């Protein structure tokens, strides 16, 4: 019987990705779920472009952009933490990751301000299709940010290089998803 060549670690092609391969299964699942949600949002807008544009005007585009910069900066700090750990700087790595988490928490704070502002204006999840999708998509992402911060906390504690790469990979996926959410929900009109 011919031998099948397999990458070291027994994870096949997943072994060539940084961090734990299981995290990449999760990352792909999340990207597909968010991708379907964003595709659904685009189709829903097709059915009621005027209604969607009028609703979108209630969003704070500056806060959306600010949060994009906040999350990208947090991702950068997480990448620097992995780099520092690879260079053998244990405490330096922890400091970078702590900074990444602190900046990531700013994202949550800004988003809570946004949600509170919308709810005060009477714009809730049942207002119309736009706001239903806005709350569902950004709310699901918000939960991922919370989960990401928990994961970053755990890998800061148990900070082997593989753990840090795995935690940072999840965090970068959360970044990437927001980079796609921001233009579609806040800007395109």
């Amino acid at each position, binding site marked *: 019987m011919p031998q099948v060549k397999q990458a070291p670690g027994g994870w096949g092609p997943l072994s060539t990705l940084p961090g734990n391969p299981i995290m990449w299964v999760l990352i792909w699942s999340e990207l597909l779920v968010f991708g379907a949600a964003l595709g659904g949002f*685009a189709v829903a807008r097709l059915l009621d472009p005027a209604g969607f544009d009028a609703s979108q005007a209630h969003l704070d585009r500056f806060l959306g952009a600010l949060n994009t910069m906040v999350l990208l900066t947090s991702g950068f700090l997480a990448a620097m933490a992995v780099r520092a750990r690879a260079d053998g700087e244990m405490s330096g790595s922890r400091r970078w990751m702590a900074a990444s988490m602190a900046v990531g928490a700013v994202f949550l704070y800004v988003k809570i301000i946004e949600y509170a502002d919308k709810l005060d204006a009477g714009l809730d999840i049942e207002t119309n299709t736009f706001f239903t999708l806005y709350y569902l998509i950004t709310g699901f992402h918000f939960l991922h940010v919370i989960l990401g911060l928990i994961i970053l906390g755990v890998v800061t504690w148990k900070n082997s290089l593989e753990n840090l790469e795995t935690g940072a990979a999840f965090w970068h996926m959360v970044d990437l998803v927001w980079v796609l959410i921001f233009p579609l929900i806040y800007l395109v009109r």
Partner: protein
Amino acid sequence: MHAALPSRRTLTLAWLTLMVLTVGAMGAGKVGMDISLGPVWSTALLLIAGLKSGLILWFYLNLRRSTPGWRKGFAAFLIALLGFILAVYVLTLVL
């Protein structure tokens, strides 16, 4: 030193580029104005989003050290998603 990871300088340059692209997206998206964007600026926004996603994948997620198969897979995902969104947007203008 871990050779497979991007250097601090590369990571910093990637972050600066992402910041500049975000400012570019704010300009293309006419953040301060409640006016329709039209197909050109909307396409620009989606292209910028694609570029930013690519930078995150390439440098932060370090796909540059992965296999061509993974790189093509992620690129195909982004092109399919952003292409679909753009196609639906254009359809909205036509209908």
